[in-house]
């Protein structure tokens, strides 16, 4: 039988303590390391599926849904010199005619992986490596 502890505070032998709410609220609820060019996931937490919507456009579905849409996803791609692009890759929330609310849901988040050139123009690109995280409250 698995052990179970119900507690409000964790305290070290040295006397430092932290409320368990910091452990639960402060833990990442999602992370992913993915290969955009292969549309595959190498490692993840709380990701049930990865959908390739087009070049540099992916939807990450969560196994366990977030409590609301006010969670904080962040991420990156990385520039590979062999990719022929001159700038660093970015991982950005999808925003189009439907607005952010169409893409940032409690059950999934849709992101664009882009590079920004010297003129500050963005272009979607399927980078070999990209990674993202999300913090917030699970349902």
């Amino acid at each position, binding site marked *: 039988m698995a052990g179970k502890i119900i507690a409000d505070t964790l305290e070290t032998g040295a006397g430092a303590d932290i409320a368990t709410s910091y452990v639960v609220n402060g833990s990442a609820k999602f992370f992913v390391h993915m290969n955009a060019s292969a549309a595959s996931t190498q490692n993840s937490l709380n990701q049930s599926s990865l959908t390739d919507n087009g070049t540099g456009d992916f939807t990450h579905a969560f196994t366990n849904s977030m409590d609301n849409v006010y969670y904080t996803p*962040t991420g990156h791609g990385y520039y590979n010199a062999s990719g022929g692009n001159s*700038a*660093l890759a970015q991982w950005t929330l999808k925003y189009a005619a439907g607005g952010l609310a169409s893409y940032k849901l409690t059950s999934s988040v849709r992101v664009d992986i882009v590079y920004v050139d010297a003129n500050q123009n963005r272009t979607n690109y399927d980078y070999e490596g990209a990674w993202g*995280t999300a913090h917030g*409250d699970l349902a």
Partner: protein
Amino acid sequence: MSTIIADNLTGKTSAGDITVTSEGGAATQSLQQGLAKAWVNFDGVGTVAISDSFNMSSITDNATGQYRYTMSSAMSSYDYSVTFAQAVDDPDGSTDIWTNGFRSNHGCLPKTTTVVSMGLYDGVYVDCGYLSSVVLGDLA
């Protein structure tokens, strides 16, 4: 209110897996996997210096706007997640939008199980006085 006093937490069924209940109470999640495994705040102007950090052994100035940090305890593989941010004050006086990210050459990933390489770009690589990065994934 209850308090647990301990120096170490270890899973009973599986040493590396402790489950916590979600904020809403509808789900459970691995405690270990959700914890940040390293973070760093550093000054990237002049002699690069770590201001505060966790699981970080050193940081190196590779070139203007390009940095590399080394973690004390290694990750289990390179398949971990990293994010990176910088302050918005632009040291070159332009109004360009900065982009940050991870630079690789010759087809190699910009990270190993202990080292992450990153860069800061606004048309050219630029140094910044306030940078931060967080690592999530599995420790070895």
